[in-house]
């Protein structure tokens, strides 16, 4: 089984590792993009530290909005298990991403068992032009505010909840108000793909208002489960979330400067390490940027100096991943174990071929 190519030519894994390490060592501004499990992330960050790279996730934009809510504002959040067992009002904030439809369907098919009200009501805040049909044929009541957009709709909702006048009232507000008045534990589901930073901050403002006298919270369903796991690992390893760089010899977090997609588009980077065991592929090679790819592939990736075939975490090899369903990191056993190497093992091998620096942290 071929797992390494230099250009279009098959090669030994060891030779490809040495070549990738040499390219990386020679680079002046390396950047990493990854979409991998916790141990792949740990190995990537360890390598980034050794070579002074910046790193980001392949779904960086949505994750960055979610991260900014934490770094700039904070908020009130709830575990998904508590949502299933306690939430009697569910408000979906913005368009529901495909990845989270299954959980919403589950919520529609179950009722809370930890509170006296054994029923749930569903609302959709904003959410573009489409309505939302839930798993068992139920529909979410739409709360919209004309062309105000999601942030404007939440702002109007918050204002109306506080008894203030608004120029364009939120549709179905009275139904929402009545539901909120009797709800024991309302929960707002939010996603970085669908809501910008101001919308998320306004949502937390609404929650702060409600929590003065009763209870409510928000469930974070991340733009990318793998990406949120990587965010957590980066945070404990460096103190900072993704979009952190070791270029100056210590970790620096700057969500604009170390937006790797921006760095590549601006021609700042001369080396791009792309790591993804999923379906995502690197964008086209720009200019003189050297590209090394770790991907689940059976052939070399076009434009890559070196390609490594890796297994998918949790499928080809055991893994630790973030689960939006549990709200934490879970261990996953490979369900179709193969001999494809993990991203972590390739990255560690590359790091071992970088001329001596500090001892590797993993």
């Amino acid at each position, binding site marked *: 089984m071929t797992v390494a190519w230099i250009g279009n030519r098959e090669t030994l894994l060891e030779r490809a590792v040495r070549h990738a390490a040499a390219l990386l060592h020679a680079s002046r501004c390396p950047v990493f993009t990854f979409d991998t499990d916790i141990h792949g992330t740990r190995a990537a960050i360890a390598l980034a530290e050794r070579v002074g790279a910046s790193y980001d996730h392949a779904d960086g934009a949505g994750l960055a909005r979610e991260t900014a809510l*934490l770094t700039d504002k904070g908020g009130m959040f709830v575990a998904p298990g508590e949502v299933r*067992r306690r939430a009697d009002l569910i408000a979906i904030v913005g368009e529901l991403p495909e990845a989270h439809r299954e959980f919403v369907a589950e919520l529609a098919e179950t009722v809370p068992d*930890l509170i006296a009200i054994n029923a749930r009501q569903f609302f959709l805040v904003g959410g573009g032009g489409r309505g939302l049909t839930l798993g068992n044929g139920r529909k979410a009541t739409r709360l919209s505010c004309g062309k105000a957009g999601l942030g404007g709709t939440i702002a109007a909702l918050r204002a109306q909840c506080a008894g203030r006048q608004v120029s364009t009232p939120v549709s179905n507000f009275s139904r929402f108000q009545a539901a909120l008045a009797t709800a024991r534990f309302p929960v707002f589901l939010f996603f970085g793909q669908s809501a910008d930073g101001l919308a998320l901050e306004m949502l937390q403002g609404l929650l702060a208002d409600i929590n003065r006298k009763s209870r409510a919270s928000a469930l974070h369903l991340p733009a990318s489960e793998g990406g949120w796991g990587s965010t957590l690992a980066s945070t404990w390893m460096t103190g900072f979330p993704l979009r952190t760089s070791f270029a100056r010899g210590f970790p620096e977090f700057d969500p604009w400067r170390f937006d790797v997609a921006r760095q590549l588009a601006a021609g700042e980077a001369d080396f791009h390490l792309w790591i993804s065991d999923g379906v995502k592929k690197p964008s086209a090679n720009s200019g003189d940027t050297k590209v090394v790819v770790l991907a689940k592939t059976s052939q070399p990736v076009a434009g890559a100096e070196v390609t490594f075939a890796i297994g998918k975490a949790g499928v080809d090899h*055991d893994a630790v991943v973030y689960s939006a369903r549990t709200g934490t990191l879970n261990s996953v056993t490979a369900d179709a174990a193969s001999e494809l190497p993990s991203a972590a093992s390739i990255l560690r091998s590359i790091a071992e071929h970088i001329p001596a620096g500090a001892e590797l942290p993993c």
Partner: protein
Amino acid sequence: MLTRIKSGEIVDPVNGRLGKGDLWIRDGEIVETPRSGRADRTFDASGCVVMAGAIDIHSHIGGGNVNTARLLLPEEHKAHQARPAATPLSNAGWSTFETGCLYAKMGFTTVVEPAMSPNAALHTHLELADIPIIDKATLAILGNDDFLLSMIRDNASPRMIEDYVAWTVASTRALGVKVINAGAAAAFKENVRTFSLDDVVPSYGVSSRKIVKTLQAAVDRLGIPHPLHVHCNNLGAPGSADTAAATIAAAEGVPLHLAHLQFYGYGTEGKRKFSSAAARLAELVNASPEVTIDIGQVMFGQTVTISSDVMRQFSARGTAHPKKFVIHDGDGNGGGIVPYRYRPDYYGTVQWAAGLELFLLITDPWRVFFTTDHPNGAPFTVYPKLFEFLMNRDARNEVASTLSKSALAHSTLASIDREYTMEEIAIMTRAAPAKLLGLADRGHLGAGAVADVSVYRKGKDIAKMLGRAALVFKNGDLVVKDGEITHYRWGRALRLNPPPDRAIVKRLRDYHEHRYGLSLDRFTFPDSAIQRDEPFREVPCRA
């Protein structure tokens, strides 16, 4: 390899060794003086104090809430780069890697993360595994989880509750059990805003006292060496000394550990209705031999409060500095992150003085433990200064002279002359923690002990002496020399492993599938998930 630490002043209260002598290490273990008398390497410890590696029993160094605090406060870390001396929180190190290095430099070799949410055990252990050099351990949080509260409500047998506690400890790889504001997090979800020892959790009809007593009994009967670790109700509130006194009384002869007692050392005297009640609590602790406590000392400066006492943190959100916070309703406790700056004003002075009074008025160093509840009272990097306050009355009086006189008027601190001796420091930070946690292999320098050894160059400046160890050995490896890391190694997490009861596992499996729609397997993990060689070391329960 045979190592000789030569001519140091050995302070080993457990084995009665106090005075000049040699210490011998073979590989990772302390040994008697070998007959040959020839060492492969020798370190001259003349003019140095030689003690076992220090053990911190309560420091929030890893897990979901700690990581959320990191996410919430990137600016505190950034400040570290520019001005490390002026920003204590930043000095604490905000990454797992810095945490291990900074602890090791002070001669600490084992640290307990005291608040692990069982559902986030894997996350916690992954973080701990990335803390280098030192050994770690965790306490699993119970007491706000539906499974336990339902069992208590339904009058489940003590045996069934013990089986659940044992399963939780084993599956989460914990070293003990902690209860945090028992019942309050569950009550908060039902919009209850204050919760005391005899208040009842809605929907369950179970009082906080009942939860504490149930868990205390289960921990004791299971032979878990560390007594139930209790974070009491009403943390930080004026008059919370009454709650702490009631909890101490509730021990009723069975071992109980009260965490960060300083945060309950408050009375209601003075025009601000906030005063130190530490002397009263110290008297109660002195009279209750079954009770142990750690302090949770406050030191002035910026920090962040990280607690699974979600109700308390919610009520403190208005004090956030900078003005941002996270409140998380978890499956059991959840938690709250509220950054805070301790100022040397009236309130800060009361807290600072109350902690020191507890340290100095509790007479038995085997029952009082050295903590700042990192980072809640202060980051652990203030430890050297805190040692100085305990060992030098002039140092603390000098600081006190700059603080609120009206606050100190309600405190006994000025009247206390006691200064801790080095032997008492060795008991409080080495021997007693090892005994409390059931770690027979450390906390002393006897033959057979793990070769965790700290060597400090004696000097008048206590903070300097204890802040930068001259030598630190972890499992016999030299890891620190002259206050700098010389060798990077990986410690283990110390854990208990009581055998699971099949019936409770089946019941839990049904419970998770029915109530959460998830397999119990989602909440457990194999050791291999940590991806370190031997990530755990098993500690036996009492027979």
